[in-house]
């Protein structure tokens, strides 16, 4: 216990410290992911986020081979293209190959991921691409890779990248709110109203791909997939309002970043792993104690029904 207390003393969130930057990057990833993750969850496409995050690998490698650098922009473009290809192929297999949706997702992303692995192993001698870094980017190192402008230190590059992505996603969400909502809730109505359902589907996929690959590099694949889906699912359990679901998802994600950092410091373990763990724990809490869908509230509700059946039937 003594060791733990000591470690907590060392934790500092003062602006400029490593702790501050790590939690900030984690929170920005959480926000960026929640802005697109909620609609993924609502459209029952949770696994597509996972699929895209694997399938973008060949895109990253190809972008790297062509540009010869680890610049973020070519990588985002390469990964974005592959993300869209994943969504497109999945669609195609489901519609014309008569595969169930989850099967076509599985087929597509393992195939593309495998191509990525071949590309990496084939070209690994020629280019300095660290698979570990691509797949398991470590948020711990985020503070060290800083952005410099005319010699001035502007803070970690990943904070800038994720901040930009979060803003872009927020703008997309606010501008597209009505269309995204009607497409997710009732695509037949959307089509009947003249909304371009296909276009909005691929726009969402493009933003998910971009977010995934940008976050990849800064925090690693586990945290991205976790942040994309888990906080959104937590929020889904807690509210009946769509905007509140988004707000709660961001909140759950930010709490996971903060709590995960504390946990990792205490255990001296992987920060990304700890953040993902905390977000899982928050989901568990919501699943048990959530006001409407929670296991506990359902039990209580049922007991009340049993004792006072007349009172409840009046309100229906």
């Amino acid at each position, binding site marked *: 216990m003594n060791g733990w207390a000591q470690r907590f003393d060392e934790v500092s969130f003062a602006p400029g410290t490593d702790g501050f930057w790590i939690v900030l990057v984690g929170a920005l990833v959480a926000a960026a992911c929640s802005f697109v993750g909620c609609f993924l969850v*609502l459209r*029952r496409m949770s696994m597509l986020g996972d699929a895209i995050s694997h399938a973008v690998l060949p895109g990253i490698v190809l972008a790297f081979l062509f540009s010869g650098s680890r610049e973020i922009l070519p990588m985002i473009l390469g990964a974005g293209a592959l993300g869209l290809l994943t969504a497109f192929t999945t669609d195609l297999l489901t519609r014309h190959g008569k595969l169930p949706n989850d099967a076509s997702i599985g087929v597509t992303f393992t195939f593309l991921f495998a191509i990525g692995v071949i590309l990496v192993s084939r070209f690994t001698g020629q280019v300095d691409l660290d698979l570990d870094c691509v797949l398991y980017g470590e948020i711990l190192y985020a503070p060290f890779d800083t952005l410099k402008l005319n010699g001035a230190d502007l803070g970690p590059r990943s904070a800038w990248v994720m901040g930009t992505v979060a803003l872009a996603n927020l703008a997309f969400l606010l*501008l*597209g*709110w*009505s*269309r995204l*909502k*009607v497409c*997710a*809730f*009732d695509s*037949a*109505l*959307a*089509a*009947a*109203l*003249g*909304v371009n359902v296909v276009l909005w589907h691929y726009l969402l996929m493009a933003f998910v791909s971009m977010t995934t690959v940008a976050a990849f590099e800064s925090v690693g694949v586990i945290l991205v997939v976790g942040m994309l889906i888990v906080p959104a699912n937590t929020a*889904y359990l807690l*509210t*009946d*309002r*769509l905007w*509140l*679901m988004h707000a709660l998802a961001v909140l759950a994600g930010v709490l996971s970043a903060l709590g995960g950092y504390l946990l990792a410091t205490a255990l001296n373990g992987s920060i990304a792993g700890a953040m993902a763990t905390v977000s899982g724990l928050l989901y568990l809490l919501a699943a048990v104690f959530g006001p409407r869908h929670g296991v506990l509230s359902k039990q209580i509700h049922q007991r009340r029904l049993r004792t006072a059946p007349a009172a409840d039937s009046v309100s*229906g």
Partner: protein
Amino acid sequence: MSPAVPGVPIEVHDLTVAYHHRPVLWDIDLQFPEGKLIAVVGPNGAGKSTLIKAIMGLVPLASGHVKIYGKPAEEGRASVAYVPQRGSVDWDFPTNALDVVLMGRYGHLPLFGRPRRRDKEIARQSLEKVGMLEFANRQISQLSGGQQQRVFLARALTQQARVYLMDEPFAGVDASTERAIVTLLHDLREQGGTLVVVHHDLQTVPQYFDHVLLLNLRTVAFGPVAEVFTAQNLQKTYGGQLGVLTEVGERLRNTDWSRRRG
């Protein structure tokens, strides 16, 4: 909704629709007249929903085309409201009744626009018309089946369309809701609207509707109820499947057609 330019709301020409190379609608040719309340009847799997979806452009056409007020369907669809068969949406979606109704206004929004106060006003009025205003803030999965149906009707009302396509709006509603819906349909017709309604209860067809389309893969008959809703046509539509056919035939013979509009 304004007293319409005379015209044919919906024309269907040589329409054939197939799922996996198996035709479910064959060579349909129709002109729905304006300002009428039109029933579409036929057995399960006859292609009633498919016809509605084909008009809405929701299924690919194997051949033929649809015109709405003389224009190609893509351009005319803004003046058509569609009430899908229940169960086609995700009822656990985090949204409430008012929000769902508001979605009917989205066709009127600019590309990145949000509903304005006027849109919300229209949505509330529509909820009121179907007697659901007190449930405006209720999450949709917490509504009963009949209430959900009414929310969908209200959503169609907010579209302020001239043509309404409704897929079984009477399915699973109680007698008083059914009466409320019928009144609503008649109101819409008085305002010049054209309503095409998929309907399963043969007994009430003469009482509620002006025209009837008897459908089973092909058009068996289409025209004013008094002319085409005959035991013989019903027999052709339903084949031997329908035990109550004789009973309906019996009733038809006893129907006093002159009292029907009362």
